[in-house]
């Protein structure tokens, strides 16, 4: 229409000299318009020449002439016409212009379809031309390597060629094109196979090949095969980083490499694949998923191997950061490759690592506990420098307790990193629930307390009979440690844990009370074992002293035997030792002068007056009966009765065991008169010093009474020593 618009002013500027009536002039004007159109299309010459004669065609003043010159025409009008005529002619011209305009419009309307089809034909011609040129263009494109252009040309032509292939000329073109296209496809494939030029270019090749109508399935396979090659290379380089020979990069670096190399590559492949092979539908998606799964699992295997190397390390922060990167990186393809489940698998790995770390920390805590015990053993075994005491038991206990507690806190802090908000996996259900409750609270903390109790109890099970005897002080210390755990430490640790790891899930957890009960039971067993061990030590001294002596031919006692002094010394030492860790305990109120009480000589004092003649008439009297009567009034002594957590109870237990041993040993010997007297002296000495250690001094008295009574029974000639003499000897020491 630009041409028509440009032509507009010139026809409309000179209608003035054809004053015909509206009726007669219509065909004439139509012809005129035709003529102008023809003129425009460059056909004017021939046709204008063939027109019937009219005004001189060369007249520049002819409004309808080809050589009309407006200046000349106006000049002529101004020179020749009067004003009135000029005015008329202007009015006339305006009218003519208007008419002409509307004619033009009508004409355009009437011929619109013709215009359009004329344009279509034009385009068709161009297309035809394109088709004819196609083979050469394609060849050129292929030569230049402009594969994209070539494929576009081919794409444009293909349908037409297909449609008109029954026409020989088109057929020829099509054949040519097919040959060229085949070559093109071959070159593309070549390029594709050579690979190496990176994922985007490969994707381009595939795209072009697809556009060429190559079979998508095959391409899909090949595409994935190439991608596999590239990704495997990444995996190999990762594996090389694992290798023992070059110093392996730290785990963070490793996961970074893996993330950018492998995972990044996989993402690109996946994205390109989804774009290229979207048409493949679910089958294609499944293929990609399988691909990703397979390579992903190999990647995970490598990552796990690398992570396994971290197991020994103590520092969680780097590991958690690495895991975070690893996990975060896989979330993107996770969305893309939901079917492959890579994100889930990654989460699983992270969970597994977290579990392993918990196990590692539990081991660490156990080792720390054992380390503490070793330290205590060493401190206890260290030779005492004269005048300079080593660290006291209380101090050792405090060291152990604080060391364990700080280890626990450090472990808690280390595993707490797994649940930090900024870590990408911390919002996973495992880390919000199970990790906190079952992992940290139950597995780590409760597990450690269990294992601590078990370790401590194991010292009771091997009661020093097969070597590796546990020093009694260690038993005592452990017992106190467990008791402290029962009273305070356990609930403190668990509160601390629960605060740090807001446990929200429904898993049942071990209640504090259960743990406390376990700790208390452990403490009780340890203390009981301590009593047995110490009791045994003193028992052995007493036993040997009774067994190795010839009691029949012993001399009249002048002194307390040295072993008795040793017994008192050792008991005092034990009392001090227990006092360092345990409270005094309750003592049965007793007259204050009991230490001064004269030790009653059983056999002599009881033989008078208390004998009941009606008891057994058939047998000769025996002191045994008196002993039986005596027992009616005293309770049975449980030699190994449950120990309470205080010093007095512990000492009572040890002394009971020792004196019972003395009793049993005495009953196996036979004593001469002086032998009996020696026993009298020894027992009085023990009475003097041991009463202060026990809860109920009556007990010591009773047991010693029985020892002397038994000795008297085992003496064919029981003449006891005067109590005053016994006292003198004992006071002499």
């Amino acid at each position: 229409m630009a041409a028509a618009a440009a032509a507009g002013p010139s026809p409309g500027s000179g209608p003035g000299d054809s004053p015909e009536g509206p009726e007669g002039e219509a065909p004439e004007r139509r012809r005129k318009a035709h003529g102008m159109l023809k003129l425009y299309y460059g056909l004017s010459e021939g046709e204008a020449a063939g027109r019937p004669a009219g005004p001189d065609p060369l007249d520049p003043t002819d409004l309808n002439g080809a050589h009309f010159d407006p200046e000349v025409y106006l000049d002529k009008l101004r020179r020749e016409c009067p004003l009135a005529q000029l005015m008329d002619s202007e009015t006339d011209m305006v009218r003519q212009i208007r008419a002409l305009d509307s004619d033009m419009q009508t004409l355009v309307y009437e011929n619109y379809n013709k215009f359009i089809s004329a344009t279509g034909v034009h385009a068709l011609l161009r297309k035809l031309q394109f088709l004819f040129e196609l083979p050469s263009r394609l060849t050129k494109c292929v030569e230049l390597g402009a594969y994209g252009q070539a494929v576009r040309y081919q794409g444009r032509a293909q349908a037409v060629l297909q449609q008109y292939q029954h026409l020989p000329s088109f057929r020829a073109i099509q054949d040519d094109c097919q040959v060229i296209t085949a070559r093109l496809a071959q070159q593309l494939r070549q390029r594709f196979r050579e690979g190496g030029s990176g994922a985007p270019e490969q994707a381009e090749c595939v795209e072009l090949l697809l556009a060429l109508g190559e079979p998508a399935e095959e391409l899909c396979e090949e595409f994935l095969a190439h991608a596999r090659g590239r990704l495997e290379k990444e995996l190999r380089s990762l594996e090389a980083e694992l290798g023992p020979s070059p110093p392996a990069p730290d785990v963070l670096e490793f996961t970074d490499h893996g993330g950018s190399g492998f995972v990044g590559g996989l993402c690109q492949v996946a994205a390109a694949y989804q774009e290229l092979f979207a048409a493949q539908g679910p089958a294609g998606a499944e293929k990609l998923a399988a691909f990703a799964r397979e390579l992903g699992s190999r990647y995970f295997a490598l990552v796990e191997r690398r992570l396994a190397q971290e197991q020994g390390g103590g520092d969680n922060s780097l590991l958690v950061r690495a895991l975070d990167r690893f996990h975060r990186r896989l979330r993107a393809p996770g969305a893309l490759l939901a079917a492959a489940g890579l994100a889930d698998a990654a989460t699983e790995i992270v969970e597994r690592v977290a579990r392993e770390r918990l196990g590692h920390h539990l081991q660490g805590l156990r080792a720390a506990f054992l380390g503490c015990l070793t330290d205590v053993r060493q401190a206890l075994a260290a030779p005492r420098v004269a005048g300079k005491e080593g660290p006291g038991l209380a101090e050792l206990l405090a060291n152990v307790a604080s060391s364990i507690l700080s280890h626990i806190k450090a472990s808690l802090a280390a595993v707490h990193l797994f649940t930090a908000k900024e870590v990408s996996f911390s919002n996973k259900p495992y880390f919000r629930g199970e990790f906190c409750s079952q992992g940290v609270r139950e597995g780590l903390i409760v597990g450690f307390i269990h294992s601590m109790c078990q370790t401590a109890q194991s010292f009771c099970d091997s009661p020093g009979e097969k070597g590796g005897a546990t020093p009694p002080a260690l038993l005592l210390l452990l017992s106190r440690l467990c008791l402290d755990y029962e009273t305070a430490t356990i609930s403190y640790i668990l509160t601390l844990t629960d605060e740090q790891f807001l446990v929200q899930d429904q898993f049942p957890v071990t209640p504090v009370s259960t743990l406390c009960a376990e700790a208390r039971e452990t403490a009780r067993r340890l203390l009981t074992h301590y009593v047995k061990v110490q009791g045994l030590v003193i028992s052995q001294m007493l036993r040997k002293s009774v067994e190795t002596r010839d009691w029949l031919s012993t001399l009249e006692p002048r002194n307390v035997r040295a072993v008795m002094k040793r017994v008192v010394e050792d008991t005092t030492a034990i009392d001090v030792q227990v006092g360092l860790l345990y409270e005094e305990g309750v003592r049965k109120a007793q007259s204050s002068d009991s230490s001064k009480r004269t030790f009653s000589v059983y056999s002599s004092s009881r033989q008078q007056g208390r004998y009941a003649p009606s008891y057994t008439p058939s047998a000769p009297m025996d002191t045994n009966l008196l002993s039986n009567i005596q027992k009616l009034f005293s309770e049975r002594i449980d030699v190994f009765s449950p120990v309470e957590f205080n010093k007095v109870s512990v000492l009572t237990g040890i002394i009971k065991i020792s004196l019972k041993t003395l009793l049993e040993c005495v009953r196996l010997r036979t004593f001469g008169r002086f032998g009996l007297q020696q026993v009298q002296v020894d027992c009085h000495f023990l009475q003097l010093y041991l009463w202060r250690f026990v809860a109920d001094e009556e007990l010591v008295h009773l047991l010693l009474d029985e020892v002397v009574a038994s000795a008297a029974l085992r003496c064919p000639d029981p003449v006891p020593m005067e109590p005053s003499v016994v006292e003198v000897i004992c006071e002499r020491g």
Partner: protein
Amino acid sequence: MEDDAPVIYGLEFQARALTPQTAETDAIRFLVGTQSLKYDNQIHIIDFDDENNIINKNVLLHQAGEIWHISASPADRGVLATCYNRTSDSKVLTCAAVWRMPKELESGSHESPDDSSSTAQTLELLCHLDNTAHGNMACVVWEPMGDGKKIISLADNHILLWDSQESSSQAVLASSASLEGKGQLKFTSGRWSPHHNCTQVATANDTTLRGWDTRSMSQIYCIENAHGQLVRDLDFNPNKQYYLASCGDDCKVKFWDTRNVTEPVKTLEEHSHWVWNVRYNHSHDQLVLTGSSDSRVILSNMVSISSEPFGHLVDDDDISDQEDHRSEEKSKEPLQDNVIATYEEHEDSVYAVDWSSADPWLFASLSYDGRLVINRVPRALKYHILL
């Protein structure tokens, strides 16, 4: 099912030695030896009348000395052996001798106790087991199931095998072996195994258990540190040839398979003081009796290591009652080792316990103060085992 009350009998002297009258399989009869340094010692023959729940006793004088150990011949009801102390020149020596009781007392007597005490009869000495060269006799054990001719005695560190001849009037030392080693080695206890044709004897010294072959008098096995402290006693499982039980000052009772001497099969720790005696029931070896100086007697059910770990085995001729047995087996399924009962009738250390040779459900225990207690296996358990 109410259980019968224990029957208690009091001796006037201290006592440590107790044995059933081994050759007697009908009447329930125990022999108890006393310990007195001042008076004549006695052997009490305790007859238990199961139906009337009363005790009849006969007292024999044992004037040779206080009795530390007593054992009855498995072949002759009237023959027994004692280990006793003889004090002379301010030296104490423990000797051993074989005795015969008066004929009329062999099968018990139903005289009233008062009469018998007035006319105490004396044991007839058959022979001494001469130990002058070997030291103190710790115990004498008869060859079980034998003819009463072979006797083993333990003297200090010697194990002596005697052949008694001519109605036991003479005992000839057939062979012997000795423990060699550091320190004073001393046997504390020994038992003759009823298995392997009675060719094995086990002994205890200090914390060690040893097995001996009586034919060669050589050691066949040795369980070192069987207990943490002194081993006081041991006994063979009458039905499982490699099993034996031991007890000691570590308050434990341990069960051993002598083919594996490194670990006990089972350990019990129920007593609170030294365990002096352990005895398997002669018929039902899951029943184990222990006596301790904590004054308690404990009856344990060690069914898991017994010869009947799945309860009573059904005899073949009972097939007609299969259905019944099946239902019973179901009810018996959970068989676990446990303490059946703790007997607290004693007030002094219990140094001896033993089962009756006539009634497998009855046992006696003896404490130092001379108290003999006769108890029975709880009825419920008895029927559980039998049915």
